[in-house]
């Protein structure tokens, strides 16, 4: 099981390098750099919020599950030892 996870991680980590080698196709939309500067809305706060929100929410969720799982398993162990 451990070996499988390790192999999986290694394979997935190699992908970024493959991606580097690829040229992204020029799509059918205008890159933001070419629009009139006056029309632009600053993108950085939007992106930061988007990615930040997801990361924070994910980490928060995983953390709460982890905590509750610990608590429940402790309770379970306690109950089972009492039952015996």
């Amino acid at each position: 099981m451990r070996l499988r996870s390790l192999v999986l991680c290694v394979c997935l980590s190699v992908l970024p390098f493959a991606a580097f080698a690829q040229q992204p196709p020029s799509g059918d939309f205008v890159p933001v750099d070419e629009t009139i500067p006056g029309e632009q809305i600053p993108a950085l706060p939007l992106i930061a919020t988007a990615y930040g929100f997801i990361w924070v929410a994910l980490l928060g969720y995983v953390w709460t599950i982890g905590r509750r799982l610990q608590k429940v398993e402790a309770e379970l162990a306690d109950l089972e030892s009492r039952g015996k």
Partner: protein
Amino acid sequence: MLALAAGMFALAPWMINAAPNEATMGLVYKIYFFHMPSAWMFMVAAITSGVASARFLFLKRPSADGWALAAGELAVLFGAFTLVTGPLWARKAWGVWWVWDARLTSSLMLFMIFVAYLLLRKYGGPGADKLGAGMALFGMANVPFIYVSVNYWRTFHPLTSVVPTLPVEMGIPLWYCVTAFTLLFIVLLRMRTRLEHQRARVEALYLLEDES
């Protein structure tokens, strides 16, 4: 927990990956790399919850309820990701936070259904598991209707804003993200279901203790 490690590990290097690849496309389109997989996982979670609810109600498998609740929570989680990243991207791409087009509105409605599902399970008191299962099942059955009705709600009248076709060819980074999100979903689902099953066992043991 090793599954968790593998899942999270897959996410981190991909963040680095998504960054340099999009230099020519303009910064904000990178939101799409999170937005689309989130939307897919939202749908997958909703369907999982519906199917698990059906198994719980009709095949009377008690363990299916844990899966249903876990999937329902993940539906709300990934749905929230989709509905937050979407407008953030739209603000830049289309100039508005929200448009009442078919896809957005349908997603919002499905999201509302699952939020209601969670509220029901949390505040409905004893027996809410069966009620929730009924609701999740109805929610899943409703998806085609929601989509069709919202779609025709929009297209019988001229669209006030043009919804651009999303670029289909984003190559490797997108599929990498989809894979990462899928792994993440599976990991979270298993963790949350495990929590739910353990909780049910604790309750059962307490009940046993009370009775003896």
